[in-house]
């Protein structure tokens, strides 16, 4: 399967290229601007951590890539999402149906609600294969189901059991099995371990690491936990107010020498085992109102270093060695 894809692939090193994406939700009383010009690049086989708090737009981004925004309410108004050379926003629904589950898979946050309680787990994994590989013979499909269950650490003998007979951690393993059985190129994992105990989280992260090695899928791990990103990812994108405010490798960002004020703020207010601080330094204020598009920088209201230009003009990215920061503090240094 992988061979065919390599032959058909275009030249670029990037599997996914999102440019200037604007997404809004048209609700009854106001327009909620979820993404305001978000740009992101994901290389093949990369492990990208998408970090942000509630309302930053991370889940919206994942749903936009798969074009699964709520019908009639979610709207992509501008920008492009180029996957393997094709602009997904220009493709028909039939193209997307072929893509979802086979080339791009998604794992949602809550394993309790991701599984259909009335179907056996084996059937749910089989469904993915039935949808995408019509010509594959039955025995081969069943074998694949057994293989993937063993791989995620669940005895294949249990495939005729129902979701409620499994614990939270095991349900998440089943969800991961469903996402990976078709050997996708890109895996979107939306807070896959947030609802789990910390020891189970460690197991799941280790499992995801092993599986990623085996299938060489690219993974976008969406989370608010900087620790999880440090343990699993190679590159990071920090999202705030519907934009990527900082991106780079884990080493560049976690070195904490040069950071966007929001990223720096996040590091300061997280109680971490390695940090000796007595008092935490919170980020003042609250998340920006997504109904109002900020004139200047989206973080201006809460930023300690805010100046006049920050309030009136949106900053452009300052990039050095692949480490990008969207902040006037840094673009000024360039002498622009």
């Amino acid at each position: 399967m992988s061979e065919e894809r390599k032959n058909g692939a275009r030249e670029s090193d990037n599997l996914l290229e999102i440019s200037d994406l604007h997404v809004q939700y048209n609700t009854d009383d106001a327009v909620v601007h979820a993404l305001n010009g978000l740009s992101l690049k994901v290389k093949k086989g990369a492990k990208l951590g998408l970090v942000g708090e509630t309302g930053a737009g991370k889940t919206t981004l994942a749903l936009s890539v798969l074009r699964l925004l709520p019908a009639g309410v979610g709207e992509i108004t501008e920008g492009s999402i180029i996957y393997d050379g094709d602009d997904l926003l220009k493709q028909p629904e039939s193209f997307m149906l072929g893509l979802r589950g086979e080339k791009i898979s998604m794992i949602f946050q809550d394993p309790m609600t991701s599984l259909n309680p009335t179907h056996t787990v084996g059937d749910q994994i089989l469904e993915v294969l039935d949808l995408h590989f019509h010509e594959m013979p039955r025995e081969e499909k069943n074998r694949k189901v057994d293989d993937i269950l063993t791989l995620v650490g669940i005895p294949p003998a249990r495939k005729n059991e129902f979701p409620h007979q499994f614990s939270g951690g095991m349900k998440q393993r089943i969800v991961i099995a469903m996402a990976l059985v078709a050997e996708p190129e890109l895996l979107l994992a939306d807070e896959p371990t947030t609802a789990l105990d910390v020891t189970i989280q460690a197991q799941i992260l280790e499992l995801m690491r092993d599986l990623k090695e085996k299938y060489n899928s690219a993974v976008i791990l969406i989370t608010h936990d900087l620790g999880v990103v440090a343990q699993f990812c190679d590159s990071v994108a920090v999202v705030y107010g519907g934009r990527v405010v900082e991106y780079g490798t884990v080493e560049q960002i976690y070195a904490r020498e040069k950071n966007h004020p929001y990223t720096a703020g996040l590091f300061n207010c997280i109680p971490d085992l390695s940090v000796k601080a007595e008092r935490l330094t919170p980020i003042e204020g609250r998340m920006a109102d997504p109904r109002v598009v900020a004139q200047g920088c989206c973080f201006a209201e809460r930023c300690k270093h805010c100046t006049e230009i920050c309030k009136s003009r949106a900053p452009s990215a300052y990039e050095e060695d692949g480490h990008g920061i969207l902040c006037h503090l840094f673009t000024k240094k360039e002498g622009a």
Partner: protein
Amino acid sequence: MAVPLIETVNLKKYFKTGKGMLHAVEEVNLKIEEGKTLGVVGESGCGKSTLGRTILRLHPATSGQVLFNGQDILKCNKREMKKVKADMQMVFQDPYSSLDPRMSVRGLISEPLETCGDIRDKKEISRRVEEIMELCGLPANHANLYPHELDGGLRQRVGLARAMTLDPKFIVCDEPVSALDVSIQAQILNLLMDLQEQKKLSYMFITHDLCVVKHISDEIMVMYMGQVVERAKTEELFENPAHPYTKALLAAIPTIDLSSRKKERFVLSGEVSNPIDPEPGCRFAHRCPYATDKCKKDNAVREIAEGHFVACNLC
């Protein structure tokens, strides 16, 4: 040696279920001094929330004692209990379901006073509400707002204010920051610590997050499936964790320290199960990499260093 504010002696709480007897809290002994914080840490099903509620008599205890200033409150009658209740309050985890959506901020904060406080005068109640709001960082003009108009952080402040109204001495904080965004967590944690300093409050801080508990606790107690597996002063626990479960818990925490990425991390296998009609001995044995046959009989608590208690025969 001062009498500790809160002390439990062999506290047990069992629930009768359809499948058998659930041993939610098993023989817990703890002490909390005035002005100090005990962090209670564990994963789901360990009994930490049940412990907190049993101490406040929200659940009737199965056996054992809960001593408040030396007095066993489990034996108190209704009248005596009324006096003690004012001194022991609780802050809940979910800022969305812990506030009655039909009551204004003012109503929520004044309710404890109206229910059981000694103050009857409306003006006095109003004044007290303003005082508490200021103490907890709530702007005065929020008094007439309703919970759905506030965000998670503000709601949690209201929950805290409600707990502070009766001027308690001891507050059980049940995962008070787990449902909040990281940047707001820090605000609330700082507030809790400020209040503790000002009012000499004692906290039982229940959480699954070891990083959070490290900042706020003087002493930490680790629980697993209803049993206390380790108890020590905060620094001692982090520097010299003794129990295999504590070690596994610490190893599982994803830290932002990049140097640990290269190291082989010990990942604990297996799952937590429900302690229904459990077998005697250590309940961690079936997951423990060091378990021996002796563990099924002996998991008595030993003091391995001053103030450092471990329930493991291998330590």
